[in-house]
């Protein structure tokens, strides 16, 4: 049983290796096509992740300033605000603290509140929001709460950021879909060319008693290997491009946080590359087996 298994595996692996070795330029056509398409796909995903991250960070800095009615204290409203969805953090600023800070800022000596008839400020709350897209809605919600005099937030900036993020998300999805479809089409055609060039071999194997599975497996392994090599090259190119972009970022956009290329992206590319290689081979060899 074990001997049979090793004999079979030995044969199938050797056939796949011989196929790769003798496939010549067509293998390179498949590998380079896969490399180019996986590189573009990886680049698209990486840029999308990078912008997503940057926007999320900018978005998290957005806050809503909540000004309360003169007799309402911030501490009383704080728990209510904390319980609202998408609220990350709430900071209470009592009017006394704000007044003191203002006087210090203005360089006022002594207490001028008496001459003004008391502290003219009100309690304030600063609410940090999770996503830029919800800022406007959350601000409206807070405005309608009892004891709130007015709210202030960078509405235009928040909305713009939100819609930019949305547009980028769609662009990334569209790019990924187009590239995915192109990759399937190109890889299936390329591997079909490899199979066609070995049609005679398939025909002979069928005539000498090789089962369809035995004929197909070496081609599928070849497809897997092509996918693996394509992914390897694409990953290498992405790392080189990534380090170049990182250098430029440090030069021109130092305020943006770095977004290194993560392993999950590699795994996505590996899955896509080998999956496409295997599917392409299966489709191509299946049609060749049917033709004979």
């Amino acid at each position: 049983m074990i001997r049979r298994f090793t004999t079979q595996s030995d044969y199938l692996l050797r056939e796949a290796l011989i196929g790769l070795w003798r496939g010549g330029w067509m293998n390179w056509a498949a590998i380079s096509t896969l490399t180019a398409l996986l590189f573009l796909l990886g680049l698209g995903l990486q840029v999308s992740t990078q912008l997503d991250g940057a926007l999320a960070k900018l978005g998290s800095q957005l806050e809503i300033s909540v000004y309360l009615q003169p007799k309402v204290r911030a501490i009383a409203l704080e728990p209510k605000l904390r319980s609202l969805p998408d609220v990350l953090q709430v900071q209470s600023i009592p009017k006394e603290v704000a007044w003191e800070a203002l006087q210090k800022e203005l360089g006022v000596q002594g207490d001028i509140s008496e001459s003004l008839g008391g502290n003219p400020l009100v309690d304030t709350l600063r609410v940090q929001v999770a996503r830029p897209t919800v800022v406007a809605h959350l601000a409206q919600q807070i405005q309608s709460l009892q004891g709130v005099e007015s709210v202030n937030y960078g509405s235009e900036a928040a909305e713009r950021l939100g819609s930019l993020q949305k547009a980028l998300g769609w662009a990334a999805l569209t790019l990924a879909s187009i590239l995915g479809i192109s990759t399937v089409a190109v890889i299936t055609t390329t591997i079909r060319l490899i199979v066609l060039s070995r049609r005679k071999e398939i025909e002979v194997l069928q005539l000498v008693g090789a089962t369809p599975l035995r004929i197909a497996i070496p081609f599928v392994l070849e497809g897997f290997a092509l996918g693996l090599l394509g992914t390897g090259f694409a990953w290498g190119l992405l790392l080189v491009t990534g380090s170049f972009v990182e250098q430029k970022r440090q030069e021109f956009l130092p305020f943006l946080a770095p977004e290194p290329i993560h392993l999950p992206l590699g795994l996505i590319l590996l899955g896509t590359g080998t999956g496409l290689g295997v599917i392409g081979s299966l489709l191509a060899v299946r049609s060749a087996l049917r033709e004979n």
Partner: protein
Amino acid sequence: MVGLGSSSHEVMASLVDVSKIYANGSCGLDRVNLTIYKGDFLFVTGASGAGKSTLLKMLYGAEKPTTGTVEVQGTIVNSLTGAKLAHLRRRMGVVFQDYQLIPKRTVEENIAVVLKAQGFDRAEVRKRIAPTLQMVGLASKEKCFPEELSGGEQQRVSIARAIVHEPPLLLADEPTGNLDVHNAWMILQILKKLNHLGVTVVVTCHNEQLIKTFAKRVVRVEAGIMRELTPAL
């Protein structure tokens, strides 16, 4: 295995009322009845397009009959496909007029492909190749590629590939069709030798002279209709 070079009454293959009508309406075979016995050396003759190759293709399952039954070594071939057909083909060898060798593989690899495809281990493959090549007179050509060989040599490689797994039945479709007289003669000598070793041989051939020299049993196919010229033993 039957006695050397002689037919027995054990049936190797049979065609019963087999007809083949193609999609365009032309008739490949018309109600053919043929019994091939173990140890037979059968020539199938007739003009080009008469239906000789169709008859052979029926035996190795490359063509399906429109009506009738094709049976080989106790298996009905009519509806066999995929792995079942592959397993039947392991019990026969097929030789073609155009050799059907894999161009990018050496002689040795072309022969080994049969054994490897059938699951033989490497030691067994190595053990079988040398004597098979010796049998067809190509012992020194194992590392050559098909393009480095003459037509006659390529056909001998094709025969070696067909017999390396020691099948009881050998089907040869016009094996001498592309060869000069000397090479054709050599090929038929090899087939005769195999028959003497107990292999049932079915050969299609349109060269009447060669048939006269070698024939034990001859059937003629004309416009799809088969006629026995020499009776079976």
